[in-house]
């Protein structure tokens, strides 16, 4: 008899981890293309570098831990971490910073805690924050968006593929080009540093860098990531709860502040169209390993992330707050899960489980 005794169920499995991860990678494509469009080849170079480093780190860690290397590489989780890290960092980041960020993310935050499934913190965001507190200048230097009117009005230049590669690998700027001729403040930075200088919102929005809702260029990247996010919901890779809760937790209080004082608080949509809100809500906060798993817990978790994003942006020292908000709530996820267990079938509605 060719049958081995194993436990039911015997039906074919419906999902596979690598397929789930592959869906996430596919969902990143539109947003990535939009970023490449506005910020140049550096985005793709970062992605390639981060992916290479991440897979190498993962393989090294598995080797050191005496475990099979191929399944760990093959589950594509390290690749997802690398890609999320790469779209979060500036497109001109020196290669060794990417290396440091990835080593911290994969080796320290993921593998030292036991590898896939055991890390309490989102590796990509932990790597990002590690770099942000270590190299604040490099991590907040963004290129100006590739929009002809802006470039002409400010006498800015864009980087070719070779220029980008040289900058990333050697730190050399293109001849006769200074940093000032390429970079521009990010909309979030612009908004909150000017607010700190007591400028009013209408004054800030008068700048030609501003578009309808956020900075020009920036304001539409989120939409492309949103497309990927909706794809993931459609494919059942994520549920709607965390992204919707993040957006609600951010927008509802932001809307209330704006109604109270529109001079000092930006229109709520600004929070979506500037910075990494959409990327964070759909791709970062929904990382299953570190997020809440109960339905009610996911709503609480997401809403808290939204609130923390708002609080850090307005009153914190860092321009974008998604990574901090996610990491802070990662700590709280197990507790939230414990207190939001669903009512088990056949148990009374009020009964404490």
């Amino acid at each position, binding site marked *: *008899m060719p*049958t081995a005794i194993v436990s039911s169920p*015997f039906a074919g*499995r419906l999902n596979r981890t690598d397929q789930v991860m592959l869906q996430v990678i596919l969902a990143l494509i539109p947003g990535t293309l939009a970023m490449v469009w506005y910020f140049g080849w550096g985005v793709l170079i970062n992605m390639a570098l981060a992916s290479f480093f991440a897979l190498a780190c993962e393989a090294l860690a598995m080797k050191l831990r005496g475990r099979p290397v191929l399944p760990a590489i093959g589950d594509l989780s390290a690749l997802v971490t690398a890609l999320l890290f790469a779209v979060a960092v500036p497109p001109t980041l020196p290669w060794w910073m990417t290396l440091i960020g990835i080593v911290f993310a994969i080796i320290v935050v993921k593998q030292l805690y036991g590898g896939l499934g055991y890390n309490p913190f989102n590796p990509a965001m932990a790597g990002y924050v590690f770099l942000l507190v270590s190299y604040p200048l490099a991590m907040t230097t963004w290129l100006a968006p590739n929009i002809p009117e802006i470039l002409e009005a400010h006498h800015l230049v864009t980087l070719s593929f070779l220029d980008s590669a040289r900058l990333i690998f050697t730190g050399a700027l293109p001849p006769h080009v200074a940093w000032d001729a390429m970079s521009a403040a990010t909309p979030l930075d612009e908004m909150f540093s000017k607010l700190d200088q007591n400028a009013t919102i209408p004054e800030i929005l008068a700048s030609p860098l501003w578009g309808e809702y956020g900075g020009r260029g920036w304001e539409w990247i989120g939409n492309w990531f949103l497309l990927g996010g909706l794809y993931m919901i459609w494919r059942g890779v994520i549920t709607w709860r965390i992204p919707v809760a993040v957006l609600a937790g951010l927008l509802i209080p932001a809307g209330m502040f704006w109604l109270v004082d529109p001079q000092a608080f930006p229109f709520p949509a600004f929070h979506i169209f500037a910075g990494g809100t959409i990327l964070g809500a759909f791709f970062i906060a929904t990382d299953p390993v570190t997020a809440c798993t109960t339905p009610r817990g996911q709503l609480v978790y997401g809403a808290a992330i939204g609130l923390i994003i708002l609080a850090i942006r307005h009153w914190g020292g860092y321009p974008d707050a998604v990574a901090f908000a996610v990491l802070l709530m990662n700590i709280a996820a197990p507790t939230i899960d414990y207190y939001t267990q669903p009512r088990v*079938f056949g148990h009374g509605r009020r009964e404490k489980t």
Partner: protein
Amino acid sequence: MPPYRLGAGQRQLWTFPGGLHLPDEKALSNHAPLASAPLPRRLIIPLRQHIGAPAKPVVAVGDRVLKGQLIGEAQGRLSATIHASSSGTVIAIEERPVPHASGMSAPCILIETDDEDAWAELPPPLSARPDPEALRERIRWAGIVGLGGAAFPSSVKLTPAPGIRVRTLILNGAECEPYISCDDRLMRDRPERILQGARLLRDLLGVEACLIAVEDNKPEAILALRQALVTDGDAAGIEIIAIPTLYPSGGEKQLIRILTGQEVPSRGIPAQIGIVCQNIATVAAIADAAFDGKPLISRIVTLTGRGLGQPRNLEVPIGVPIRELIEQAGGLSPRLRRLLIGGPMMGFACDDLDIPVTKAVNCLLALTPDEAPDPGPALACIRCGACAEACPVSLLPQQLYWHARARDLDKVRDYNLFDCIECGCCAVVCPSHIPLVQYYRFAKNECLARDQEKRQAEHARQRHEAKEARLERLEQERKANLRKKKEGLADKAPPPPPGAPVVGALAPAAVAEDPKKAAIAAALKRAAEKKAALASQGLAPKNTENLAPAQQRQVEAAEVRRSELQAAEDAARPRE
């Protein structure tokens, strides 16, 4: 949870949480009408085909038995009778492998069949509306158990506890496991029998509604039942309901939820909310017993899977080895990967073709590698939550897994492990291919084992304490008796007045004869002389002097003992 749908004239249905849409694979086996499996040369009839105690054999090796003859008597309330499924000779009563996930053996009666298939004398048919007690007795006699796979004795289920009013009877024709089609075929081929049984139980329990539920992937079965209900007369209270196809809607508690919106309390039984569920095959067997006087000696078995040449449904006598059935279904394919008893979601693998069909065996499933691919090694849980989404009981399977792995038995209870129905939904959707159900079974066993240990320890403690208490009580009684006796003695003979000479006990004559006694007398004399000398010198008495008479007596008695010892020692010393 909202109702599933509510169309005009349609019964309102509810949903349960989670569940899965699985490929049903029923078309593989449900195309041909029921046929009978031929009798094998040898029947292996286990004495335990039900939950509860095994039946007691009432035949001996060498006896000739007839078809339908009682061969095993029920032992206890949850036991069921066993009958011979054909005529022949009992050739052995011995341990044989039986269908069980563990591959265990159990006592079986082996019958070598003659080809006569001669019936024993059967009881007369009951009337269409039999006396409830007579019907229950008939069901008990026929050894009818739940044929959905649980094998719970039906007579027990149909005898509600005092004070419980059953309002709804649910007949379960959902058959939600993929591949299995034995109920489908029964509903299509013998709908009248099912309805006859339904009426019997409706009247027996006096219910307000009898709901026959069938998943809507079996339209022919639904149609057959509806037609039979129309043409067959008495349809009062009987309703045939198509329910949406969603695994595991055939679970008793899930089905009750779908049909009534009610939830059976955790650890409770449907009767607590006024509901009794029976599988439709059980109901047909009850009708067989009532109207044909036929005990439960056969059942319908689905033989299916792409690992079998000709998948089909057969009416199989209880006790036929599955090897014979596989021949009837075209043999095993060389591409066979797994042979299962039951469905792919909740069945168990078997690797012994000599196990017999029992009352609980509803399906023999031969799967090829395409149908049951090797899930590969389990990967780490990424807490994706797919398991929680699929769980029909709203458990958190990933948390249960985590704590089961850590053998944290308090935590698994905290997370309601014992509400898990082991339906397998979580494991099928797990992207990391973790055998979740296996962990839950393990944890349940661990919990039960620990409970058992605790009970035993508690029992031992109680026994010990009882023993201590008993000894203490005996001691107290003894003391009390002694006291009573003493008091009684004291009443009769008052103690001697103080100062009475104890030495008087030693008669001078005896002293003269016994050197030991002489020594004692001498010692006493010395003591008296010493005392007198002290007194004469006017010295204050020591604390051993001037004693109360009782103490004086004690001291003297001690002196006596000492001198006795001294004398004995002297006597023992070798003489120089």
